[in-house]
């Protein structure tokens, strides 16, 4: 029951992107298409789950004063693994995510979960927390990526959706569209939350 709660909180109540506003750089940068968004989301989910696991297993052995550098080394190790695996097996994805793969290291969600959750909870719970948070992050990326791809390019996962008459709003695949799209998404989230609160 409580494991399910830890898992599910990442999707809505504590969605890292839409509610906590953490890790926004990759959210804005790699959501020009739904495919890139999912690739980024799953890479971050892997790093988050594994780093939560290792941090949790080592939480009694790491002295308090050096915990942040220790967490960073653990996170960077898994980021390097993701970087190498993507380069070897999914070269196109690696190319379109580019700089933002090494930058998963400084994604505040991951260090935040290591510090706030994994360093205080058991290994299993920490993995569940990492998985839930990671998939919540992926969901937010996927929604924004879908909106931007459909409006800006008229496609979904690369498939053309509309007939000849559709004129894509080019600005949505350009940088300004990322900011504006995310702004409306968070406003929409606030609206739903308010309606729920008012019954």
């Amino acid at each position, binding site marked *: 029951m409580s494991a399910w709660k830890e898992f599910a909180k990442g999707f809505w109540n504590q969605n890292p992107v839409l509610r906590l506003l953490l890790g926004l750089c990759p959210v804005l940068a790699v959501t020009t298409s739904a495919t890139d968004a999912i690739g980024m989301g799953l890479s971050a989910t892997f790093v988050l789950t594994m780093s939560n696991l290792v941090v949790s297993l080592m939480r009694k052995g790491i002295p308090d004063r050096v915990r942040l550098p220790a967490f960073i080394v653990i996170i960077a190790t898994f980021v390097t693994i993701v970087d190498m695996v993507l380069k070897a097996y999914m070269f196109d994805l690696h190319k379109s995510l580019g700089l933002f793969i090494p*930058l998963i290291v400084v*994604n505040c969600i991951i260090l935040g979960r290591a510090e706030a959750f994994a360093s205080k909870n058991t290994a299993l719970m920490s993995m569940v927390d990492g998985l839930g948070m990671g998939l919540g992050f992926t969901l937010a990326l996927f929604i924004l990526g879908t909106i931007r791809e459909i409006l800006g390019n008229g496609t979904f996962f690369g498939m053309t959706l509309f007939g000849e008459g559709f004129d894509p709003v080019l600005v949505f695949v350009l940088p300004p569209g990322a900011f504006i799209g995310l702004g409306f998404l*968070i406003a929409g989230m*606030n609206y739903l939350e308010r309606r729920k609160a008012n019954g």
Partner: protein
Amino acid sequence: MAETNLVMIVVAAILINNVIFSRFLGICPYLGVSKKLSTAFGMGMAVVFVMTLATALTWPIQKLILEPFDMGYLQTISFILVIASLVQLVEIILKKTVPTLYQALGIYLPLITTNCAVLGVAIININEKLSYLQALIFSMASALGFTLALIIFAGIRERLAIRKVPSVFAGIPIALIVAGLLAMAFMGFAGLGN
């Protein structure tokens, strides 16, 4: 020729490929510390300082240690550790030697470790195969571009705070939409490169 090249790097890093508006680096501090003009300026200066120093250290590490020994895969780990310890070191040194500067920049320094712009620019330097001088100029200009974006944005947000905004848009959503409009304005500089 070399001089026009450096000028071009500065213009491109500040206006055309602004770290915030076109590379999406450092969005967290951009949204976090842009509520007041004075803090925006302090944060900007701290980033200029740390980003230039970080490049001064990470570029030689890549060229003199990682590449000769064929250890390119350690780039991410070594860069982030260098940046994190650099920030700590700068904080300690400033506190002891230049207390006035420490008071001005102090509270922003810890935040910079997780500013992805610093690590991002250090990696861009290597990916774009810049020389040491070019890399230093590029880092400083990128940080100035960050400061420019932060100051413009803070100016707008100070005014936005006293305006009536539809309640679901209040705070971050309207700030993001403003940032989008600013990014659109900055796209106008794209023609400068030709």
